[in-house]
């Protein structure tokens, strides 16, 4: 099992190397090597260190965050269709970001507002699902889906009343785009820290995946564990949404893909999700910015185009 993790790690490194080497501008391998050694022309240094490196890290961080959040949500809700956005986090984040864009704010405030919106969505769903009655995953799921529909309506309303010149920026944000990431560090740091912190809980998650009754019978404190997953997954998703808008698909498909290959052991699935999700988004973003360069595609298009056939193939083969 550690072998598969090592393999995924190697794949992740290879994808990042590819992302650094490829771009709309051709940089010869010799020039790449010079930049790595701390030399090279100013232009090559700018291309690699100021443009490609931060973007690659941001893509990796975002992809990893989404995939881990997806894996956690699927365990928490015991629903294979759960993804990081199912509880309306991206909707809340989008409303926050769009409000800031509508007010003509700078990129930093847009990011902050997106994070605030996502956290507000988390608290809202938490509070409503908690309610007065008993708490169940299906109640959480239903609350989340309805709240998400509410955010969707607010987003549509905002798009309808927004001056047309602001629309492209908003639509690109909604599609998800790594080129808007100004700093990769929040995504990368949150990803690493949360995976390290959640790993000790992986064994309990395995038990929880079999159902709360069994988990309780086996001595797992189900309620605190579920809230922990919810809070962590929300934080991961909020960070991803803040970094690159709402990129779909990664959070849903990557954990499933890994389960088909590696089996459903969260001790493996969680770190593997971080690596594979990051790899997928790095590859997708590399294609998005080079395929029809200089025109730039939204990365979400490519994640789906890459992921759908891969997933269907794996699903077909597993029968």
């Amino acid at each position: 099992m550690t072998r598969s993790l090592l393999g995924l790690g190697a794949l992740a490194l290879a994808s990042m190397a590819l992302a650094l080497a490829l771009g709309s501008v051709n940089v010869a391998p010799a020039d790449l090597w010079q930049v790595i050694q701390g030399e090279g022309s100013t232009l090559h240094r700018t291309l690699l260190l100021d443009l490609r490196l931060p973007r690659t890290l941001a893509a990796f961080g975002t992809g990893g965050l989404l995939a881990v959040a997806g894996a956690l949500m699927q365990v928490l809700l015991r629903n294979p269709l759960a993804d990081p956005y199912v509880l309306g986090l991206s909707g809340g984040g989008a409303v926050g970001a769009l409000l800031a864009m509508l007010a003509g704010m700078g990129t930093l405030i847009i990011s902050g507002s997106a994070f605030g919106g996502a956290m507000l969505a988390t608290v809202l769903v938490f509070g409503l699902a908690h309610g007065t009655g008993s708490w169940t995953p299906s109640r959480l799921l239903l609350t989340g889906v309805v709240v998400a529909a509410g955010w969707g309506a607010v987003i549509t309303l905002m798009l309808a009343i927004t001056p047309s010149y602001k629309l492209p920026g908003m639509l690109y944000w909604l599609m998800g785009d790594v080129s808007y990431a100004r700093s990769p560090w929040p995504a990368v740091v949150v990803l690493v820290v949360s995976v390290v912190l959640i790993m000790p809980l992986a064994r309990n998650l395995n038990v929880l995946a079999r159902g709360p009754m069994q988990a309780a019978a086996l001595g797992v404190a189900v309620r605190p564990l579920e809230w922990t997953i919810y809070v962590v997954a929300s934080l991961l998703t909020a960070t991803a949404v803040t970094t690159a808008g709402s990129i779909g698909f990664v959070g849903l498909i990557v954990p499933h893909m890994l389960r088909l290959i590696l089996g459903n052991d969260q001790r493996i699935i969680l770190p593997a999700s971080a690596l594979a999700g990051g790899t997928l988004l790095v590859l997708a973003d590399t294609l998005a910015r080079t395929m029809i360069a200089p025109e730039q595609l939204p990365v979400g298009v490519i994640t789906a185009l890459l992921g759908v056939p891969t997933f269907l193939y794996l699903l077909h083969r597993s029968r």
Partner: protein
Amino acid sequence: MIPRRLNISFVLGLLLLAFGHSVAASEGQRCAIDDVGKELCIVAPAQRVIALSPGATELMFAAGAGHKVVAVVSYSDYPPAALELPSVGSHTRVDMEALMALQPDLVVTWVTGNPPAQIELLQELGIPNFAIEPRTFDGVSNVIERLSTLTGTEAAGFAEAERFRLGIAALTERYRDVDPIPVFYQVWEKPLMTVNNEHLIGKVLKLCGAKNVFGGMSRLIPRISAEVVLQANPYAILTGSVDGQTNQELEDWKDYSGLTAVEKDNLLFVPASLISRPTPRLLEATQIICEKLEAARARL
């Protein structure tokens, strides 16, 4: 230790900057204030310019600096020479790598059209950038002057700006005393959109002696219903069309025979390419609109 060293280099940097600044000033730098109020000073005339909107490309050529444009964005189709230039993506998504690789010494950006994050990145990478978005006739002529100042092509730029200014002044004079007729300008059919008086097209209508029926609305490009158009009963309906002659987009209005504009056959078209950008071609568009409205007025 490290912060202190950073501080020293920072101070040294500032000193160098101040020294460099004074040298440059003595050689006479070129300064201009862009449309977001930011002053840009460059030491020598810009030689490698990238225009990040089709309008900016047109204005660069108008400023006599078309030969200094090294790259444009998609849809930069005027003047024809612009079609030959390499592209750095679209105005909503700039390929920053391609842009940096061309090593521009000036990037002309679009205030509301380019993504703010990419403009900030340009700023961080130390690329001189100049944001433009003319919203008045005067804005068009003086942005041409400012661009020519930055590229050292003042002779051509100021002459073109003056030609535009005089042309607009002549049209203003000519249509000053005509009877204003109510006009509806249709920006888009579905959803139905128009302009208010703050929009450059609104200003063209006013100049031609038209009363924009939705001029007083608060938004630049308001979305409206067909009902309010019927209620306003414009004497002419105007829209942009690709070939300037026919347009399916006004066909639906013919169902309302009670509309004065329909009754008097005043469904008018103007070439979309002339009116869609705040560039010197706006003069031509204004002339066409004024003439068409004059003919429409005669049919009433």
